[in-house]
C-alpha cells in the first residue's frame, strides 16, 4: 500500500492534480468494468533494412544485475508496480533489452520465444491466438520515458531491438497494440508491422471475458513486407 501512495505522490509532483485524478479515474473504471480492443501485429524481421540513426540510443541486453537500475527507473516514472513484473520476468527467464542515452536508462523492451514460454501471459489474457513457431518471438512491455519520446527515439529503439532479434536468428516478431492508441498503431504500421487480427475483450472486476475475434481482410493486411523501417 505504501508503494501505491508513493506512486500517487510521484504522479502529483510530476504531473499535477488534474493528471493524477485523470489517471485514478481511468484506473478505477478499468478495474470495475471495461471493454478493450487490441490489434495483433506481426513483423517479418527478414525485411528489415539498415537505417541511419544519430547513434544516441544504445541497446543492451537486460541482465538480472540490472534489476536495481530498473527499480530506480520505475520509481522515476511513478510505477513501482512494474518492479514486481520485472522481478517475475527475470525469474521466468524472459529476455529484454534496455535502452540508454549516455549512461541513463531511458526504456526497456521484453521478449520471449517458444523455448522460454510458448504462450506468454498476454497471449492468454487477451486471447491473442498467437502460436509462436521456431524462430519467432513475442515482444511485450515496450516502454520509453516520456521525456525521451519524440524526435524518432521510439522508432530508433524499435529498429535496434528488431535488428538485434534478427541477428539472433529470429524471423518474425509478434506483439499487440491497443486499438484506441491510434498514434502507436499508426507508428507500428509505418514501421512495417502488419495487423493480423483485432481481438475485443471485456473486463469485469478481475475477469477478462472474450467478446470475439475478427481477422481483418487480407486486402487491407497485405502491407509490403519488403518495407524500409
Amino acid at each position, binding site marked *: 500500500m505504501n508503494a501505491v501512495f508513493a506512486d500517487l505522490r510521484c504522479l502529483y509532483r510530476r504531473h499535477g492534480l488534474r493528471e493524477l485524478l485523470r489517471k485514478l479515474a481511468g484506473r478505477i473504471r478499468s478495474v470495475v468494468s471495461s471493454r478493450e480492443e487490441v490489434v495483433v501485429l506481426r513483423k517479418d524481421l527478414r525485411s528489415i533494412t539498415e537505417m541511419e540513426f544519430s547513434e544516441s540510443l544504445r541497446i543492451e541486453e537486460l541482465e538480472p544485475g540490472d534489476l536495481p537500475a530498473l527499480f530506480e527507473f520505475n520509481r522515476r516514472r511513478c510505477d513501482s508496480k512494474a518492479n514486481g513484473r520485472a522481478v517475475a520476468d527475470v525469474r521466468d527467464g524472459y529476455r529484454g533489452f534496455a535502452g540508454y542515452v549516455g549512461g541513463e536508462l531511458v526504456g526497456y523492451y521484453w521478449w520471449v520465444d517458444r523455448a522460454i514460454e510458448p504462450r506468454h501471459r498476454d497471449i492468454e489474457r487477451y486471447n491473442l491466438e498467437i502460436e509462436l513457431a521456431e524462430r519467432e518471438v513475442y515482444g511485450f512491455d515496450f516502454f520509453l520515458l516520456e521525456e525521451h519520446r*519524440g524526435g*524518432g*527515439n521510439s*522508432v530508433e529503439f524499435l529498429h535496434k531491438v528488431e535488428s538485434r532479434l534478427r541477428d539472433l536468428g529470429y524471423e518474425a516478431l509478434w506483439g499487440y497494440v491497443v486499438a484506441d492508441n491510434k*498514434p502507436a498503431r*499508426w507508428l507500428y504500421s*509505418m*514501421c*512495417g508491422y502488419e495487423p493480423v487480427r483485432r481481438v475485443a475483450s471485456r473486463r469485469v472486476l478481475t475477469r477478462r471475458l472474450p467478446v470475439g475475434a475478427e481477422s481483418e481482410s487480407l486486402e487491407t493486411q497485405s502491407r509490403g513486407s519488403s518495407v524500409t*523501417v
Partner: protein
Amino acid sequence: MSVTADVEQFIISELSQGRGITSIDPGDNLLAKGIVDSHGVMELVAFLEERYGISVGDEDLTPENFESVARIDEFVARKQDDRG
C-alpha cells in the same frame, strides 16, 4: 507550391521545431531521420487531409506511402486521382 515543397515546409516548420532541421531531401527516410514519430504521423495526416481534401485511412499508413516526402507526394496524387 508543389505537394513536395508544401509538405517539406510543413515538416520543417511544424514537426521539426527545435531540432535544427532546415532542409529535407525528398528521398530522406522520415522515420530514420526522426522527423516522423507517433505524434508527427497524426499531425502530418491531419495536414494532408485538410490541405488536399483527401481522406487517409488506417490502411494507407504504410511505409510505401509515408516513408519520404517523395512517397507522400505520390500518395497524395493517387488519392486525388481516385477522388476524380
